[in-house]
């Protein structure tokens, strides 16, 4: 028998295609559908109101404890960002264990303990279950809330904000959230450096005391444990937790815009545009249209076979991916269509998105699409059951949303009963192609005009603040008049022209270290020095003299290219306003903008290659309040004081692309028309 097999195999090896031909033109049929078994969560409630769900699963020797609070989101106002710090603060040491000990004990087991503003989580191998629960509840009951941890979190939050305002996708999310939900809603309120600074340890403590109560909490235990053991463990570790009154909150329901509104954030360096077409929508698990809208979204834009993906990626090649998202949330959700597309196809991509949205509203979906979507969602439901935690979530959701007890047990049945008419009706009810915020993060100069076809275009900052434009009231105003007003305001042109040279020393505080800057301007001889030092060491020195320029930094010297010299030319004058005409620059008035709460004329300064900077002069005082240029960033001037008869700003705040936070500097000394040593420009 064996031998025969060998011969057969050898023959097959010689004649490679000696197999019976398989008919590959037909796809195989599915076997009988497997029965989907929904595991059962066992539950009990402690006297303090803590509701506990246990899912026994001994497949792997591990266990997890997940605690969830059912509380309304909090509007944090001038302390926005607080809730994001709660979790880290709670796990930064306890009255029994300092932070290092706490972390070391967790890591030693290879376990995990974490917390958020409405949750706690712990997991470990089964054999460490007592220890990990001890650590979790220690953090829950006895958090230390160290001040230095809060300071650290604030610094990190600021760095995170700096990173986010430079990341097109993060900008898109921030702007979308503010537009959808508004600044007076917990999902829309903006976080800023100021709101971070306002947060105190007392705020953290108050939050913890108010919201971490057993009577609003669910605990899910999943893994290698018996129900009885779980009960004993919970009784041991959670009985001491005291109940308390937790306040509820009600918020105004955010509404979609009356018409399509384009929100454009300029990111001049971007090659791609991040698109997000979005509006708020009332949808949660207990909504009768919940399942139908899952099907609708599946067909429209979820996954690699949806209409949006097939159109924008597979057919047009505009993007790596295009998706829609139909959120679901107890308070308020949003619907969105998003993609990162090549900058040059920004408008074409939006056009295709609108086309798909309108098409599904007008024509609904096909039977084939419906069948696919059902199979897809049903499959994903079945796959989710592989994770035993899913059953715990089901049990918690059923309670939290007040769902029918058989909500999940009948999930597939209800899914399969959905008709194309149902989906079409849901599309008409929920898809609003004419009531969206069309948010675009991209190169404004390339795309702004084209975007006007989709609705009124408003410019936003990366944080989601509208970039304000204000009507000019004075009809006769010209750039030259504004410049004259400025020169008058600081002391009059004669006095200003008398400044032949200037030496200015400034200092700035960076994280407890002092940075010093020294600028020397020699107007008569076209000389300029800029020296930056820290702790007495010169970090960088730039010298421009006689049409030549060089930068030395840490012992390395670099000659400035002619092009760079040209770009930086105006910065070498202490009062460049005197020289615009002489040097051949043209000035254009570009309306009024709000600069730190003050209205200011915006003047764009251009040379033959285009704009080089924008200067802002207060409408009221005539003083210069801001200067914007792509080389140096944005500088804000304030605290004007008189120096030899001329008003000069004593405070300067620089927001530069080179530094991740506003650099606030003060003038330490300033002197005009002094005798400059011969070696000043060496």
């Amino acid at each position, binding site marked *: 028998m064996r031998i025969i097999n060998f011969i057969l*195999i*050898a023959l097959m090896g010689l004649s490679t295609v000696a197999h019976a031909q398989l008919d590959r033109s037909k796809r195989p049929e599915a076997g009988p559908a497997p029965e989907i078994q929904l595991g059962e969560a066992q539950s009990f409630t402690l006297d303090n109101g803590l509701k506990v769900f246990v899912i026994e699963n001994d497949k792997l020797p591990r266990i997890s404890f997940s605690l969830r609070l059912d509380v309304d989101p909090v509007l944090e106002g001038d302390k926005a960002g607080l809730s994001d710090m709660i979790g880290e603060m709670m796990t930064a040491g306890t009255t029994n264990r300092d932070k290092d000990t706490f972390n070391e004990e967790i*890591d030693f087991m*290879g376990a995990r303990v974490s917390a958020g503003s409405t949750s706690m989580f712990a997991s470990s191998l089964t054999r460490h279950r007592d220890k990990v629960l001890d650590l979790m509840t220690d953090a829950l009951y006895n958090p230390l809330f160290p001040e230095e941890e809060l300071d*650290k979190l604030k610094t990190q939050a600021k760095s995170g904000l700096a990173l986010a305002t430079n990341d097109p996708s993060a900008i898109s999310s921030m702007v979308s959230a503010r537009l959808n939900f508004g600044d007076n809603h917990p999902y829309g309120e903006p976080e800023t450096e100021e709101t971070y600074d306002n947060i105190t340890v007392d705020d953290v403590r108050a939050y913890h005391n108010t919201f971490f109560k057993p009577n609003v909490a669910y605990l899910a235990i999943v893994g290698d444990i018996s129900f009885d053991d779980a009960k004993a463990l919970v009784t041991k570790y959670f009985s001491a937790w005291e109940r308390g009154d937790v306040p509820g909150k009600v918020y105004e329901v955010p509404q979609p815009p009356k018409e399509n509104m384009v929100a454009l954030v300029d990111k001049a360096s971007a*090659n791609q545009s991040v698109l997000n077409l979005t509006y708020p929508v009332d949808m949660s698990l207990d909504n009768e249209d919940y399942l139908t809208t899952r099907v609708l979204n599946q067909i429209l834009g979820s996954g690699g076979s949806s209409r949006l993906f097939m159109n924008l990626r597979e*057919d047009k090649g505009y*993007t790596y991916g295009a998706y829609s998202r139909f959120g679901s949330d107890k308070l308020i959700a949003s619907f969105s269509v998003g993609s990162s597309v090549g900058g040059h196809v920004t408008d074409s991509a939006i056009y295709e998105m609108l086309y798909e949205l309108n098409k599904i509203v007008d024509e609904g979906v096909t039977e084939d699409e419906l069948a696919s979507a059902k199979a897809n969602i049903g499959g994903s439901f079945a*796959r989710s059951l592989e994770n035993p935690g899913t059953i715990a979530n089901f049990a918690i959701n059923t309670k939290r949303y007040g769902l029918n007890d058989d909500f999940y047990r009948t999930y597939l049945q209800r899914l399969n009963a959905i008709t194309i008419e149902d989906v079409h009706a849901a599309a008409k009810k929920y898809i609003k192609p004419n009531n969206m915020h069309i948010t675009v993060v991209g190169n404004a100069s390339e795309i702004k005009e084209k975007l006007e076809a989709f609705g009124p275009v408003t410019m936003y900052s990366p944080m989601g603040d509208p970039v304000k434009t204000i009507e000019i009231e004075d009809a006769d105003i010209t750039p030259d008049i504004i410049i004259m007003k400025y020169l008058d305001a600081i002391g009059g042109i004669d006095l200003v022209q008398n400044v032949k040279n200037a030496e200015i020393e400034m200092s700035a505080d960076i994280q407890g270290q002092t940075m010093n800057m020294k600028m020397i301007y020699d107007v008569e001889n076209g000389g300029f020095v800029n020296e930056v030092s820290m702790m007495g060491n010169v970090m960088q020195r730039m010298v421009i003299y006689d049409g030549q320029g060089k930068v030395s930094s840490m012992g390395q010297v670099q000659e400035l290219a002619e092009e760079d010299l040209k770009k930086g030319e105006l910065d070498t004058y202490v009062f460049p306003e005197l020289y615009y005409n002489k040097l051949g620059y043209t000035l254009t008035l570009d309306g009024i903008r709000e600069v730190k709460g003050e209205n200011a004329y915006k003047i764009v300064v251009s040379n033959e290659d285009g704009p080089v900077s924008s200067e802002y002069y207060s409408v009221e005082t005539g003083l210069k309040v801001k200067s914007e240029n792509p080389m140096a960033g944005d500088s804000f001037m304030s605290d004007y004081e008189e120096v030899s008869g001329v008003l000069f700003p004593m405070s300067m705040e620089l927001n530069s692309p080179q530094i991740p936070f506003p650099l606030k500097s003060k003038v330490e000394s300033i002197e005009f028309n002094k005798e400059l040593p011969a070696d000043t420009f060496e």
Partner: protein
Amino acid sequence: MKKIVFSMLLALMIANLSIGQTNIEFKEFTLDNGLNVILHQDNTTPIVTTVVLYHVGSKNENPERTGFAHFFEHLMFEGSENIPRGEYFNIIESEGGTLNAFTSQDITLYYEVMPSNKLELALYMESERMLHAKVDQVGVDTQRDVIKEEMKQVMDERPYGSWQRELPKRLFADLPYSWPVIGSAEHLDASTLEEFMMFYNTYYVPNNATLSIAGDIDYEETEALVRKYFSEIPMGKKEANRPEANYEPLNAEVRDTIYDNIQLPAIMQGYRIPPKVDEDMYALNLLSSYLLSGKSALMYKELVDKQQKAITTFAFPLDLENGGMFLMLAIANMGIDAGELDKAMDEVIDQVKTNGISDRDFEKLMNIKENETVNGLASVTGIAQRLAQYKVFYGDANYINKELERYRQVKPEDIKRVANKYLDNNNRVILTYLPQAN
């Protein structure tokens, strides 16, 4: 001929079971066209994962045609003689399945997770694209555009994303790991349909593939189905480009500055490390956990928590077949100069090099590894992917049951030894990421 017969004898062997609490049983056989097959039964949930691993990655590419392996990952979803263009996703998803793929320097891996009554469909779909994928000009042109957008999204527009190009270029100079997996747009533009077909016929063949199936299956039925769909696929005959594993230290530090579209400076350090199967890889893996697994890990604690010089740090050994890279990235906190951060990172590494690690820390690392191993077995997809990769990289699917044991053979002093041997200043590239002026 003898070789073939010998491999036949090995076929149908059921792997020996070794002791251990989370032992993964499996069955293994090889088809006569060279396709390795591994099956693992777990009837807990009615789903099944099918993995096809092709032993081809960016290192097998012609240096003038980089990005081919990844390009194929896209092309393979375009369709086959019996699957209409663009329908691959749709067919799987509309039967309740999900699917994806990834490409690395060494392999390309595809997988489907299906309801268990639709395993046959997954096998049909995978066999279709192994037998006769449709590689045509329309597909090539579309995917070329898609990949260019992917390049921008993952490498150019993503902060620090350019490390994928900038670091290997300097660390591996003229070795095949020197280019990014996603490759070069110019190379893709210059490629012809014939070149793509040649690549397909060389690498997308059963004797260069491993099929692993895990989930709610019956061993016998599944084996019959595998034979039904895969036996008729002819063995590949083209000669593949297989660069040899050759670990050599870099021998001189390389430093460079990258000006990127970022706000915060960052330091990226990369060191050469030995091939994946090298004994020292176990200690190097533990070393990376020591530096950055959990809040008590040395580098996290020092740089992020104590000194607050970084807002975030990463360390991981990218272990590759022919010798990979140990990577460390730290993003500077506000107001921290890149040079200062670089120095602080070195001080952390020097601590390990000088002091080694304590017995308690070593025990901690073992506990962490045990957790990782257990968690890696939580899904049938994780198991199927591991079985296939272990078969290809270690020549033994049963490595899935031996991995933890291998880690237990490491001694505390090995951590210090490998830190000194591989995290050597002359064996590294340091990139300083600075914000670019507009």
